[in-house]
C-alpha cells in the first residue's frame, strides 16, 4: 500500500482542476504530517479521491465530487477511505449503505488514523453517535491543522447534530488558525443562521464572496442564507450572480426555482426547476427536484395537477429503487389530500414503500426517519378528521419506535404525534408541552398555535404562528403549513383594533 497525504494530492488536484480556487492567493499549506493520511495502491484513485474532496467539500460541486469518489473506488475497489467518503456524502441511501459496508470490509487496508476517520464516517451513518464523537475528537486532537477534517467535523456538528456551540467552536478555531480557509467561513455562517444568530451570517458571507469572486458557491450560499432570513429579492440576486459566474452550478438553479416557489410565482419556479432537473445527472437528485417541481402545483392550489405530477415522479422513483423518495412522495400527496380516508391510504402506500423487499437497500436510520414522518403525518391527519382511534393506533407504533431508536427525528415525531392525540382529547396544556419537543416542524407548530389559542394563550399562539410563517424552506410540511400561518397573521394585521380609549 502506498501512503500519501493531502498535501501531495492537493498539488495534483490543483493542477488537474486548473487551479479553480487558485485565482485567489492560496492558503498556507499544511505540512506533510499535519493531515490524516490517505492510503491506496493506485495513484489515479488517490487523485480522484482528492479531487472528490476538492469538489465536494471545498467548492461544493456536489455531483462532480461524488463522481470523483466513484472514480476513486473504481480505480481501487479496496480503497476503504474512498468507499467511506462516498457512503458519507452520497444522497442515494442505497449507495450510502453499500459504500459504508465496503469501507468496513476493507478497513484493514487503511492506516490506523484513516481507520478512525472511516469509523467516524460510518458511525454517523449507523446512528452510533458516541463512537462517532469519540473518533472525531481523537482525530481533531491529533490533526489540529487538518483544515478539511476540522471543516467536516464542524459541518457534522452543526448540520447533523444540531450541536451548534461545539460546531462553532471547531470552525472558529479553524478560522483563527487560517482566516482564508473559506469552506469553514461558509459552514460557520450556516451554523450561525441555524442556531438563532442569523445576524452573524451575512457579514461572513460578505467575506466569503469578496474572497472568492470567481467561485459560484459563495454567492449561492449568500442566496440561501438570505432566503432563510426571508429576504427573497436578495436571495434571487445572489443566486443569479452565482449562475453568472458558472451557469452550470445547479444548486443555484434550484435555489432560484425554490425562491420563486416561496414567493408564490409557481410558473417561474417550474421553469427554473426544469432547468435544474436537466442540469443534474444524479438520479436521486433529479427525483428530489421533480418532487419540488410537483409541489409547485400544490402551492398554487392545483391539487389534481400536483397529484398527476407526483404519480409520474413516483413511478420514476420506483423504477430507480429510490424507496425513501417514493415514501416522501406519498407523504406529500397525503398531506395535501382533502379527503382524510384517501390521505390515510396514501400514507399506507408510503409505509408499503418502506416495507418493500428492497428495504434491505436502505440504512436502518434512513428508513426509520422516513417511517416516523409518515406515522407523524398519519396521526395528524387522523386527528384532524376526528379519527381518534386511528391516531391512537398510529401513536402506539411511533411509541414502539421511540423506545428503541436513538434517532432525534423519531423521538420528535413521537412527541409531536402524542401532542396531536392529546389535542384531540382536549388536553391542550399536555399537547403544547409535547408539540414543543418538535419546535421546527411546521405541522407541530401549526397545531401548537391552535392548542395555545384553545388554552387562552393568545400571545404565545401569535409567536408560534410568527415562527411558522418565517420558515422558508423546501419541505413538504412547510409548503403545507407556513402559507396559512402567513395568511392568518396578515388577516390579524388588517383587522381593526378592538376596544381602546374613547
Amino acid at each position, binding site marked *: 500500500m502506498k501512503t500519501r497525504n493531502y498535501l501531495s494530492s492537493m498539488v495534483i488536484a490543483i493542477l488537474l482542476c486548473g487551479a479553480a480556487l487558485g485565482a485567489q492567493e492560496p492558503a498556507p499549506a499544511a505540512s506533510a504530517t499535519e493531515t490524516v493520511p490517505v492510503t491506496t495502491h493506485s495513484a489515479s484513485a488517490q487523485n480522484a479521491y482528492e479531487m472528490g474532496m476538492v469538489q465536494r467539500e471545498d467548492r461544493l460541486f456536489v455531483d462532480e465530487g461524488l463522481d470523483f469518489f466513484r472514480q476513486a473506488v473504481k480505480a481501487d475497489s479496496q480503497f476503504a477511505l474512498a468507499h467511506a467518503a462516498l457512503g458519507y456524502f452520497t444522497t442515494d441511501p442505497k449507495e450510502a449503505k453499500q459504500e459504508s459496508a465496503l469501507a468496513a470490509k476493507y478497513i484493514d487496508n487503511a492506516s490506523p488514523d484513516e481507520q478512525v476517520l472511516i469509523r467516524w464516517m460510518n458511525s454517523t451513518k449507523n446512528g452510533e453517535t*458516541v463512537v462517532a*464523537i*469519540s473518533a472525531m475528537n481523537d482525530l481533531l486532537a491529533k490533526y489540529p491543522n487538518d483544515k478539511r477534517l476540522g471543516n467536516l467535523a464542524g459541518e457534522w456538528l452543526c448540520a447533523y447534530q*444540531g450541536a451548534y456551540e461545539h460546531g462553532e467552536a471547531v470552525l472558529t478555531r479553524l478560522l483563527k488558525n487560517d482566516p482564508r480557509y473559506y469552506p469553514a467561513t461558509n459552514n460557520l455562517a450556516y451554523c450561525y443562521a441555524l442556531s438563532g444568530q442569523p445576524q452573524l451570517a451575512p457579514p461572513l458571507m460578505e467575506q466569503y464572496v469578496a474572497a472568492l469572486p470567481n467561485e459560484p458557491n459563495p454567492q449561492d450560499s449568500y442566496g440561501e442564507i438570505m432566503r432563510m432570513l426571508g429576504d427573497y429579492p436578495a436571495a434571487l440576486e445572489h443566486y443569479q450572480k452565482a449562475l453568472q459566474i458558472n451557469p452550470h452550478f445547479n444548486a443555484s438553479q434550484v435555489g432560484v426555482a425554490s425562491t420563486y416557489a416561496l414567493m408564490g410565482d409557481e410558473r417561474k419556479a417550474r421553469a427554473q426547476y426544469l432547468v435544474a432537473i436537466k442540469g443534474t445527472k444524479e438520479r436521486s437528485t433529479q427525483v428530489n427536484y421533480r418532487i419540488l417541481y410537483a409541489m409547485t402545483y400544490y402551492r398554487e392550489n392545483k391539487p389534481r395537477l400536483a397529484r398527476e405530477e407526483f404519480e409520474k415522479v413516483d413511478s420514476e422513483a420506483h423504477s430507480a429503487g429510490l424507496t425513501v423518495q417514493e415514501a416522501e412522495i406519498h407523504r406529500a400527496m397525503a398531506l395535501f389530500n382533502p379527503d382524510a380516508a384517501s390521505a390515510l391510504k396514501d400514507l399506507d402506500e408510503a409505509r408499503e414503500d418502506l416495507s418493500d423487499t428492497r428495504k434491505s437497500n436502505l440504512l436502518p436510520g434512513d428508513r426509520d426517519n422516513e417511517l416516523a414522518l409518515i406515522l407523524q403525518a398519519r396521526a395528524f391527519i387522523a386527528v384532524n378528521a376526528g379519527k381518534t382511534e386511528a391516531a391512537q393506533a398510529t401513536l402506539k407504533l411511533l411509541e414502539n419506535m421511540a423506545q428503541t431508536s436513538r434517532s432525534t427525528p423519531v423521538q420528535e415525531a413521537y412527541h409531536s404525534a402524542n401532542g396531536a392525540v392529546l389535542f384531540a382529547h382536549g388536553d391542550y396544556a399536555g399537547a403544547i408541552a409535547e408539540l414543543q419537543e418538535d*419546535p421546527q*416542524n411546521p405541522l407541530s407548530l401549526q397545531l401548537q398555535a391552535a392548542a395555545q389559542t384553545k388554552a387562552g394563550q393568545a400571545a404565545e399562539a401569535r409567536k408560534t404562528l410568527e415562527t411558522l410563517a418565517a420558515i422558508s*424552506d423546501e419541505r413538504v410540511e412547510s409548503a403545507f403549513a407556513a402559507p396559512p400561518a402567513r395568511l392568518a397573521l396578515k388577516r390579524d394585521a388588517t383587522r381593526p383594533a378592538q376596544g381602546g380609549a374613547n
Partner: protein
Amino acid sequence: MRNRWWIVCVLVLSVASVAFGTDYAIVVNPANSVRAMSLVELAKIFRAKTTIWADGKGITLVLREPNSPATKFILEKVLGGTFDEEKAVLNDPSRKTAVPVVFAESDEEVMRIVGGNAGAIGVIDVYNITGGVKVVKIDDKQPFDPGYVLKGR
C-alpha cells in the same frame, strides 16, 4: 451552498440541541472493567456510600466546578434533590478519605484526570468525549439512547 437536503436535515435535526441541550456522559478510565451501572449505584458513589470498584481500586469523583451548569444538573439528576440540598454532599469533610472529589476547570481536564487515574469516574458533555476515556451506560442506556437519564435540558 450546503446541499439543500442538508438544510432540511438541519431543520429537522437541529431541534435536538434547541429542545434538549446536551447529553452528559459518565466516563471512567479505559482500564476500568465497569461498562454499566444503575443510577442508584452512581448516586451511591456520589454520596460516598460506595468507595471502591469491584477490583478494589479506590474511587475518585471528577466533576466540573461546583457552580457550573453541568455539576448543578448532574447533582440534581443523580441525587434527586435540588442543587442547594445536594451540594453539601460534595463538601462533607469525611468523604475526603472515602470518595474524594476533584473539581476540574474544563471537560478536557476531567478527561485528563480520568484518563490518568484508574479509579476515577467523571462527568462530561458527550460532545467532548475522546478515546482516552470509556463511556459507562447508566440504567443500560448510553447518551443519545431514548430515555437516557442524563439528557440535559
